[in-house]
């Protein structure tokens, strides 16, 4: 074998065109989806959808879902599923509500307690999956019902028979930590922009959009952090490895069980974050909070390029997947279509995304 000839370059390798390179990114499908959905609504929807107010309008539900979807995406890349995140939102909401209303704890205590509590439930979930070797699908399906049921029972116990716990807003209103988890950020910037005529205002001179809803900021920060972890840290490599082939990974010294349990804990904490934000925002918590969010989060992750078999996907993909979701659910109200088309649209998106991802995977692994 002549080494020099090989080092000079392999004549069988063509230079890769930019498009082919792009095709290999897991988040490509979701980005293309965003473009398509924007074009669709640009044609069919009322112009007000793409004003600043309209954008904030669809980004808020997108962000609430997206926080869950990023957790779900990391877990899926790690090779597991969590069907209990929707119920976890209700359960964490109940715990948080009881902390602030019943026990009158300040947010600085109540919020960390809620996260620890959620992480504990996630760890229980994860440990059962890892130790029993059962599919996470079944174990977390059980928890979907267990947590939803516990939320109902717990709410009734805490309120004396009602399935709604009210009065959260009154107790947290003046807490110094509340602005991080509720309302809008950058209020003064928006007032300044309005005063200088750069954004739309009401007749009174107040800006139509008072600021960026905090969940959108959380959503963006989480997406960036998750992407950084996945692509630029050893832990990210371990997540891909654990999902790609857990035996090969543990043979190579990757702490697979630890990684998977941590991911379950992280997903539960994402659910708790959504619970805290929405409970403060609504001023109350109820048993239906987060209903069916587990499916929507998984759909967003899959649209974002995650494979159901694990080991492949991206957090940025889940980010765009959630934006697609938010645009469709809110966007339809700006059009003449019946809003119930939303579910048809969602199902179709999921199907297209799975077909697309499957083709991509074959391309990446060189299957024909």
């Amino acid at each position, binding site marked *: *074998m002549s*080494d020099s000839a*090989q*080092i000079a*370059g*392999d004549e069988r*390798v063509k230079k*890769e065109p930019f498009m082919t390179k792009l095709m290999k990114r897991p988040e490509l499908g979701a980005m293309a989806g965003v473009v398509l959905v924007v074009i669709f609504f640009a044609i069919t929807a009322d112009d007000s959808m793409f004003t600043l107010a309209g954008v904030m309008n669809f980004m808020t539900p997108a962000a609430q879902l997206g926080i869950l979807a990023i957790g779900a995406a990391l877990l899926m890349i790690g090779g597991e599923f969590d069907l209990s995140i929707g119920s976890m939102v209700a359960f964490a909401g109940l715990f948080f509500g009881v902390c602030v209303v019943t026990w009158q704890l300040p947010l600085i205590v109540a919020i960390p307690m809620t996260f620890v509590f959620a992480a504990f439930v996630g760890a229980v979930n994860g440990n059962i999956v890892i130790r029993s070797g059962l599919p996470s699908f079944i174990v977390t399906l059980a928890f979907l019902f267990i947590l939803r049921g516990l939320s109902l029972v717990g709410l009734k116990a805490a309120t004396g028979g009602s399935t709604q716990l009210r009065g959260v807003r009154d107790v947290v209103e003046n807490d110094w930590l509340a602005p991080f988890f509720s309302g809008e950020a950058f209020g003064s910037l928006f007032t300044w922009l309005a005063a200088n005529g750069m954004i739309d205002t009401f007749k009174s001179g107040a800006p139509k959009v008072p600021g960026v809803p905090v969940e959108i900021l959380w959503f963006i920060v989480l997406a960036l952090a998750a992407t*950084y972890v996945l*692509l*630029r*840290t*050893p832990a*990210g*490599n*371990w997540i*891909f*490895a654990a999902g*790609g*082939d857990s*035996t*090969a*990974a543990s*043979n*190579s*010294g*990757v702490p697979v069980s630890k990684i998977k349990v941590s991911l379950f804990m992280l997903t539960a904490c994402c659910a708790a974050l959504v619970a805290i934000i929405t409970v403060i925002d609504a001023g109350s918590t109820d048993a239906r909070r987060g209903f069916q969010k587990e499916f929507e989060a998984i759909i967003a992750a899959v649209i974002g390029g995650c*494979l159901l078999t694990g*080991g*492949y996907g991206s957090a940025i993909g889940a980010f765009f997947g959630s934006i697609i979701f938010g645009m469709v659910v809110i966007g339809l109200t700006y059009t003449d279509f019946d809003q119930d088309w939303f579910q048809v649209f969602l199902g179709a998106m999921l199907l297209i995304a799975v077909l697309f991802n499957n083709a991509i*995977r074959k391309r*990446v*692994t*060189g*299957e024909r």
Partner: protein
Amino acid sequence: MTEDTKFHHGDAAGDQAPIVEMKDIEKHFGNIIALAGVSFDVKPGECHCLLGDNGAGKSTFIKTMSGVHKPTKGEIYFEGKPLHFDTPRDAMEAGIATVFQDLAMIPLMSVTRNFFMGREPTKGKGLLKRFDVEHANEVCMEEMRKMGINLRGPDQAVGTLSGGERQTVAIARAVYFGAKILILDEPTSALGVRQTSNVLATIDKVRSQGVGVVFISHNVRHALAVGDRFTVLNRGKTLGTATRGEITPEQLQDLMAGGQEMAELEGSLGGTV
């Protein structure tokens, strides 16, 4: 045997002290005697072939060597000192790397990510401690080039590599992480002619870096192409160790098969096996 001339066959088998010496290893699984006294040693820079037919105990033996099984009887000396491996991890840290047939590779991940899986290089401190991707890519490309494989790029998925190339990635990885002994479990069994000669060339390169290679095979031609010494296992026992040049392919083949019937078969097959 045209392949004979391709590779250097060093003086390794000469007077150097063995890295690993295994004496009278016995392994029983319940009432089954898988190994009934096997002795084997590997010296730096040599390729010691372990030959044997299916069921001869090759796999059990290398699993004992790599710390998966504990021997029922017998002693293991590593660099002259008696040693006991409790887990494969211990053996790995001592410098015994095993490339199993499944290779421990993840097809969906890039070559670099596979190469450094579980042992990622980092830079920065504390919260800023991160996977040094640039360094990892450079090292990976360089190590693969040394083995004669030009990657399209460090981000090429392992799934797009051929079987022989994957084998080479696994070998390069083991060598890069400081293997003194490299155990290859039938690396050529599933490969085509071209890929086989690539892997054999890789073995030769690794050997010339002073690593002791244990090459498990049941293919006499592949073994003779690179081997310095040959040990034949049959029914859990060593039938003897021969140095290169002392033994003909026919003799090796007969030893592996246990003699008699093979001679008869060979006549009817015209010496093609």
